[in-house]
């Protein structure tokens, strides 16, 4: 295992045409720690997450995975798509809309990338897939198609699918935002367990309770910049910036 931070983001910027969505974001995630990103919609949280695993190409700045730049080759020059694909598997991504593949069973979803991308044998992939489904407490649903699962179950399968790549870090993009309130609990519970197991995680969320108790650090994004950051006790207990205070007052009252 390398000593470098699993994820280090340096001066990341992203424009969509004239619109500046990220205006120079720099932060680091320590191994085994959870960083939560909060902020109003439009503040750039999701774009930041998508730039980290390069579903969006940053306009400038760099993301380092264990010290290795995502966008540039060690010798200089941009990294070709094939190599970016290869680096991307080190980051598991969980989406707001789950994005399970509906024509595959739960287990099928989980073992697809281990089979095709990592080249595991079917036997090894199934064993790994079953282990990942067990971690999200869905062993008994392995043979079900997504359409037969509740939203919370679908999201847990999506988490298992990301875990099956045995990534160096997990990225969560508002994982409970499209769930009914009574289903968010089971997903957050799984995420707490992952955090307790020492999984490195970046979580974009509106679940302030989760951010407060599960994360080591919280970033408050505003207008494409990190407006305030710190340990949750500090950020939630005594926010320094006025904007952060205003934002939190809407959630915590």
């Amino acid at each position, binding site marked *: 295992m390398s000593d470098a931070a699993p994820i280090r983001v340096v001066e990341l910027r992203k424009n969509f045409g004239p619109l500046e969505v990220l205006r120079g974001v720099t932060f680091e995630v320590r191994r085994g720690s959870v960083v939560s990103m909060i902020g109003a919609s439009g503040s750039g949280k999701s774009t930041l997450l998508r730039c980290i695993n390069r579903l969006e190409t940053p306009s400038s700045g760099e993301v380092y995975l264990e010290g290795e730049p995502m966008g540039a080759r060690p010798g200089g020059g941009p990294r070709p798509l094939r190599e970016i*694909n290869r680096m991307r598997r080190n980051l598991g991504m969980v989406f707001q809309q789950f*994005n399970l*593949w509906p024509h595959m069973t739960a287990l099928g979803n989980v073992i697809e*990338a281990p089979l095709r991308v990592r080249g595991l044998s079917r036997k090894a992939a199934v064993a790994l897939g079953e282990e990942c489904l067990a971690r999200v407490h869905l062993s008994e649903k392995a043979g079900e*198609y997504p*359409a037969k699962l509740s939203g919370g179950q679908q999201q847990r399968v999506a988490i298992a699918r990301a875990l099956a790549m045995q990534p160096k870090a997990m990225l969560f993009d508002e994982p409970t935002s499209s769930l009914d309130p009574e289903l968010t609990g089971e997903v957050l519970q799984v995420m707490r367990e992952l955090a307790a197991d020492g999984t490195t995680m970046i979580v974009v969320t509106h679940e302030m309770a989760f951010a407060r108790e599960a994360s080591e650090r919280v970033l408050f994004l505003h207008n494409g910049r990190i407006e305030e950051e710190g340990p949750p006790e500090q950020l939630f207990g005594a926010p320094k910036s006025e904007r952060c205070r205003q934002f939190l007052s809407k959630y915590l009252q």
Partner: protein
Amino acid sequence: MSQALLESLDLSLFWEYRQVLLRGLAFNAYVFFSAAALALAVGLAAALLRVNRSWVFRWAGTVHVEVFRNAPDYIMVVWVHFVLPLLLGALLGRRIEFHPFVSSVIALGFVYSGYFAETFRAGIQSIPLGHAEAGRACGMSDFQILRRVILPQVVRRMLPEAINQFVSLFKATTIVSLIAVPDLMYQVTMVTQQEMRPLPLYTGAALTYFVVIYLAASAVRAASERWRNKITA
């Protein structure tokens, strides 16, 4: 009842020639399966052009679709069989001739590729973008995403419409008799010239096509129902 009507209902003559007619029907099937394979392959390629990021590719795909969707299949068969070899021959400086079977497959395959392209395109665009992103996030290549994530869903969604297009294509195979592919229609015409009794022969041919197409389409529909519905609960 009039004599003519009775005659058209007496299919014994059709039955007498069943072996030669069956051979004809087999030719319809050969043309159908070959043209369908070509139409699916070319149609998929054109659909991928139409959803490409670059406008040049999109434009090329659109031209393909419009040209072949708006060309009557009869004219295409004749054009491919008689004109295309002349053009190619002039280009390559030697005499070129297509076997009627080859001309039929090329013509029908390309005409129907226009329809299949649109069906594929609609199917591809109906798949949520997130499904491809999830694949990308797992490190899958574009080709793996297409083959493992997008196409299996597209095929399920487009199947009902595709079955209708396959039916049209099978019906269109009857025009290949015009360039002397010995299909059922061709054989019927030959026998008619000998026997001088067109009514039972053409009626028999019409009924045969109806039964074959109806049974095949129903069977495919029924067989695919369960498989398709798994993804929609």
